[in-house]
């Protein structure tokens, strides 16, 4: 699977095209895109900055992808996570999964996203009209991650 941590934006269609190439054995493509949304509770988010641990971020994403390929019959995939300053509406993360069947593709994409949220070293800082704050980790995300343990 292709893993990239980058500050630039990504093009979903181009990533799918690169991944599939001329292959005709692919039955299903599932994509997930995470975006910066403009609300946090009742506050309007003006800007978000994503900090990451270079080196370890890539390593963790590769580990998560490797676990997914061992767990489901996948035909390929791409995971891209951005860092740096972002604005509402900007793309943050992309997961593309190829499989012969949709169930494996849906499950693997959801698994990767759940794991990534709690295990990949990225931190979000939001700027609202009331000032800036670090986004707190959610217990619900941890519970979702734990739910994937066999």
């Amino acid at each position, binding site marked *: 699977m292709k893993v990239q941590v980058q500050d630039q934006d990504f093009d979903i269609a181009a990533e799918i095209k690169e991944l599939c190439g001329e292959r005709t054995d692919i039955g299903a493509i599932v994509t997930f895109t995470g975006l910066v949304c403009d609300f946090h509770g009742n506050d309007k988010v003006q800007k978000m900055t994503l900090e990451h*641990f270079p080196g370890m971020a890539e390593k963790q994403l590769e580990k998560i992808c490797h676990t997914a390929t061992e767990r489901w019959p996948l035909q390929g995939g791409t995971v891209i996570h951005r860092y740096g300053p972002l604005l509402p509406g900007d793309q943050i993360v992309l997961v593309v999964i190829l499989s012969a069947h949709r169930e494996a593709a849906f499950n693997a994409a959801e698994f990767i996203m759940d794991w990534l*949220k*709690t295990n990949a*070293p*990225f*931190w979000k800082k939001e700027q609202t009209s009331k000032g800036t704050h*670090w986004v707190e*980790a959610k217990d619900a995300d941890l519970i979702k991650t734990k739910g994937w343990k066999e």
Partner: protein
Amino acid sequence: MELLYFARIREDIGQSSETISLPDTISDVSGLIDHLREQGENYQAAFKNETIIRVAVNQTYVDFDHPLVDNDEIAFFPPMTGG
């Protein structure tokens, strides 16, 4: 050893990295945190609540009882919020 700080912990301490020599009396992550807390109010603030501190030694997540050697790279950061 090389210490790395990220996100809120980096801001509390006021720097993203520093090199220290591991005192002989410190054998694990927990001991290092206690040692760092003695370095000033900024460190005390950074390491106040252990439930929201995560640690990686040489880019692998570890628990607070993980043993340390002098050439380790130790990273301290809050729980992750990517995705």
